[in-house]
């Protein structure tokens, strides 16, 4: 890998280049029509959420008319404000842990080789392949026993543990490109290892931090299983759990459910559209060497 290990996949590299002017041929018209067709399919979830949520229960059942009734009464069945806040807090705390722990470990494995560090690195990274369901029962009992399912912390810990292997891998890959001389110079200058990380490593790690943050945000924001089991206090539920619980209720109003769905989808979509390229970089990390 070359300098600073930025695994430079030319992701959307031609974004800024003007599209070459091409003649309009029948073939390209067909292509365009196909693209529109795919777009309609991909936009379908949004269309459903919007059109169904602007009906009252009666209007939904009869199929005619629109109103904002479902939006007005939404908070009575789903405390969206509180649940969006819960999701935000859980995401923020988990990502913070994942970043700190992953960055320091990635730095250690890449630059501060110690005895058997390669083996330990491999062990940590291979934990990426283990799905939560594989260890769900002992995990649940352990976290419950230490009393952490009563607040946010149980879920935060589980998310942090699940996100750490990938985060460690990504940071280690990233830091391998940092020249040893830079770190040695920092040590010689008396920064100490914490100082090196804070003053020298942190500033150049910003793209990797962005990648981990975006990937983990979407993963944690969208997750159901951890929030469902590791947060026992109903008032601390994240929005996905609130939606799933509402959906499994007997007298669920579909329009209200769709309104809540739309609200839960918006933050992740905003993050997604704003940081698309970091997401791609993270996904292709393993193969873009």
């Amino acid at each position: 890998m070359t300098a600073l290990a930025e695994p430079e996949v030319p992701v959307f590299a031609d974004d800024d280049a003007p599209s070459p002017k091409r003649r309009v041929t029948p073939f390209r018209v067909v292509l365009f029509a196909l693209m529109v067709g795919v777009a309609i399919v991909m936009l379908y979830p949004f269309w459903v959420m919007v059109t169904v949520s602007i009906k009252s229960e009666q209007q939904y059942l009869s199929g005619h008319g629109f109103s904002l009734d479902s939006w007005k009464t939404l908070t009575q069945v789903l405390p969206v404000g509180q649940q969006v806040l819960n999701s935000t807090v859980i995401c923020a705390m988990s990502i913070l842990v994942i970043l700190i722990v992953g960055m320091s470990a990635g730095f250690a494995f890449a630059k501060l080789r110690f005895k058997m560090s390669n083996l330990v690195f491999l062990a940590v990274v291979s934990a990426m392949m283990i799905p939560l369901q594989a260890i769900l029962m002992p995990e649940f009992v352990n976290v419950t026993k230490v009393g952490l399912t009563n607040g946010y912390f149980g879920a935060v810990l589980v998310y942090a543990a699940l996100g750490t292997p990938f985060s460690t891998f990504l940071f280690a890959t990233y830091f391998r490109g940092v020249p040893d001389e830079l770190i040695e110079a920092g040590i010689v200058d008396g920064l100490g290892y914490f100082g090196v990380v804070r003053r020298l490593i942190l500033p150049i790690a910003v793209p990797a931090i962005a990648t981990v943050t975006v990937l983990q945000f979407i993963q944690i924001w969208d997750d159901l299983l951890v929030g469902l089991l590791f947060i026992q206090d109903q008032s601390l539920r994240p929005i996905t759990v609130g939606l799933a619980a509402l959906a499994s209720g007997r007298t669920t109003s579909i329009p209200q459910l769709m309104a809540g769905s739309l609200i839960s989808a918006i933050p992740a979509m905003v993050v997604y559209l704003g940081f698309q390229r970091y997401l791609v970089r993270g996904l292709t990390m393993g193969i873009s060497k």
Partner: protein
Amino acid sequence: MTVSGEVGLQHVSWWGRRTLAQRRQLAGVCFAAPAVALVVALIAIPIGQAVYYSMTNWDGITATWIGPSTWSQAFHNPTLWQALENNAKLLIAVPFALGIPLAIAVLLHQRVAGWRIFRSIYFLPTAISWVVLGLVAEQFFAYGGTLNSIIHHLGLSSVTTNLLGQESTALLALGITFVFTMIGTNTMLFLTGMATLDPSLEEAARVDGAGRWRIFVSVMLPHLKRFIQLAFVLTVVSAFSALFSLIFVMTGGGPGYATTTLEFLVYQTGFQQGQFGTAALYGLILFIIMALVGIVQLRLIGSNE
């Protein structure tokens, strides 16, 4: 004199280097410790516990030792086989979850007017929770849902489907939803792969008289190999371990056990039936399957280098 002086200098620098190396090692251990601790405490130890508890009768509080016979008993449980069968059937969705995104990526790669906007639209569902996509899919497949109104608009008013409500078709509906949820990610991977392809290669092939299909097969596909492998592994892993949200909101595993996959069976057995030991055992089976997928992945990556 000069000789001994050199030896002395070497001696000093050897010590200097050694303490520096030692300090670096110590720092390395300290910096790696939190990550290792998290992974050990919340992933490694639970696997060990799961092995023990899988051989017990465990309700989450008290565990009575039974022994390895629990494993052979588990494989006599038809529900486990049904779940494994459902998992196997869902693998049929994998080629679609790769092929459709590949076609979409090829479409986008043609740079038709407005392709950047289309790209963003295609990727948008990727941001949405599978809980939400599952709820929407329910609307699509429902008795009075979109699928039936499409069918009726096509003039087939005698046909009314209820895919999610029937044991024979519920898994099909789940599989279709799964393919939809994978489209964004896989398209993104393939498009990234295509962006790394040197355009002059395509141009050269075109000059040599290769048609579009020939260019795709001989130039594009070999270049995309690693990306297709990655997408394949991601898709298989998702099929085994990421469908919980979809199943939870769409079918709850039913009708019967028609859409219960292994990961969902872990949840059902543990949290709905209170059989923590058996659930831990099912979790380990999932772990073993994932480990096999991981080994295949390593082999694939290894074969490239």
